[in-house]
């Protein structure tokens, strides 16, 4: 299967005007279509920075982000779901999901928007809440709306920045299953930052482990168990242990 996103030697240095803090050092990896790749690493190692560079919220100091779909650097078509849902509190669920479709770069017709938004609200099981305001929803429902809003613009890849870490564990498990179902139904590709080894092993085709700052790609762990996975299975537990050890160990 062809690569949909290629990171080629990405480096990033932060500076506060007095001293410089190297954050990312020569990060390279590729993601294939329909893959779920989890990005892990010690706290503060720069996982979110990687996502922000791909999303275009930040520029890399060196290296390139290529799209497998076209060669133009500007055409990487990524949408992002944040840890904080970031729903616009003044818009209804429907209008939040429609937000990206109403922007000038897409300028869809209202009938086309209606079709897409309705489909997406069904996909995330929120069709009954289309006119609710975000503050009337639970945390898990808000995050579903955020996922639907990101999916609405039909991104090549969905960047997930610890999207479920603020939710209770039951809701989190439910949403993890949603991710697998969305991939199954829409062939979506995911790059998923998480702190949670169980979540990573439950979801990922591959787990990329970053080192501590400045982050480099330390290891790539393929996870080949068939879906749906049982995190109580001894073999799965073994991989979870391995991942946990890799993320927490100090050595480079």
């Amino acid at each position: 299967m062809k690569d949909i996103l290629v990171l080629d030697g990405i480096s990033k240095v932060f500076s506060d005007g007095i001293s410089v803090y190297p954050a990312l050092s020569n990060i390279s990896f590729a993601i294939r279509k329909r893959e779920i790749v989890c990005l892990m690493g010690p706290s503060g190692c720069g996982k979110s920075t990687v996502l922000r560079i791909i999303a275009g919220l930040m520029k890399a100091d060196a290296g390139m982000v290529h799209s497998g779909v076209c060669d133009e650097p500007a055409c990487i078509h990524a949408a992002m779901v944040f840890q904080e849902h970031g729903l616009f509190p003044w818009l209804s669920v429907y209008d939040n999901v429609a937000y990206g479709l109403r922007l000038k770069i897409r300028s869809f017709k209202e009938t086309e928007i209606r079709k897409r938004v309705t489909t997406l609200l069904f996909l995330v099981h929120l069709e009954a809440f289309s006119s609710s305001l975000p503050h009337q929803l639970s945390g898990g429902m808000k995050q579903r709306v955020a996922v639907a809003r990101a999916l609405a613009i039909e991104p090549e890849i969905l960047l997930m920045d610890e999207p479920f870490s603020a939710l209770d564990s039951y809701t989190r498990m439910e949403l993890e299953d949603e991710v697998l179902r969305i991939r199954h139904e829409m062939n979506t590709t995911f790059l998923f930052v998480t702190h949670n080894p169980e979540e990573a092993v439950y979801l990922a085709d591959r787990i990329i482990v970053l080192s501590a700052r400045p982050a480099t790609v330390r290891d790539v762990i393929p996870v080949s168990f068939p879906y749906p996975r049982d995190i109580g299975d001894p073999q799965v537990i073994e991989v979870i242990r391995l991942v946990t050890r890799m993320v927490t160990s100090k050595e480079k």
Partner: protein
Amino acid sequence: MGYLNSRNIMITLPQIIKGLVIPVGILFIWQLLSYQIHNNFILPGWGEICSILFIPGEPLFGGPSLLENSFYSLERVLAGFLLAIIVAVPLGLICGWSKEVYTYVNPFIQIIRPIPPIAWMPLAIAWFSIGFGSIIFIIFIGSFFPVLISTLDGVRVVRIHWLEVAETLGATTTEKFLTVVIPASLPFIWTGLRVAFAVAWMCVVAAEMLPGTSAGLGYLIMYAYNLGQIQVIVAGMVIIGIIGIASDCFFRIGQARFFSWQGKE
């Protein structure tokens, strides 16, 4: 804390009754005292006052009626208030959005703001002559700053996170401004309007009390004072209070209706 933070605008019957205890008590004491003093130039009875209030359409002292005077005042307030909104809201949006513009404009605002609107009256008369123009100017000055300051605050607390979300979905700078900054600051602007209207209402009455005006509630009160018609003064004050409460209710209902999302995410 707690009870003051409650956003519940529903008021129960026992609450209404409790709230009425003090006003009714004062009315009762007033009535007793006026009976005792028995001098309409000091404390007219409520019968006298109501005889004015219940015929608001009748001409007073051969001039405009209570109702007509209220309309004059309201007309002036609305004109000055709308003018202030037209200037202050766009200016506040721009100043809040652009650090550069803010740096230029803020010191000037801080210098002008503490001057009480009424202190502008002599200059206003010199520039716009006595009457409509100068009163509008005073109201404009009085309502301009609350609207400006709250619009500025509204823009400055727009969450970066919302702007980033909009950006990742493909919004241009203009779109971010129109679809995130403006809606996110609207509740603040609305609060500013509420404060500004209250200030404007005080300004109009004060400005109308100054020499040279010939209509309006402030004028009526001063005119009645010169004629020793205390019951008309009190009737005018009651109307001023009623219009003040009504406008505040209007803004509160608008707040509950359109901005219930504010602060709850």
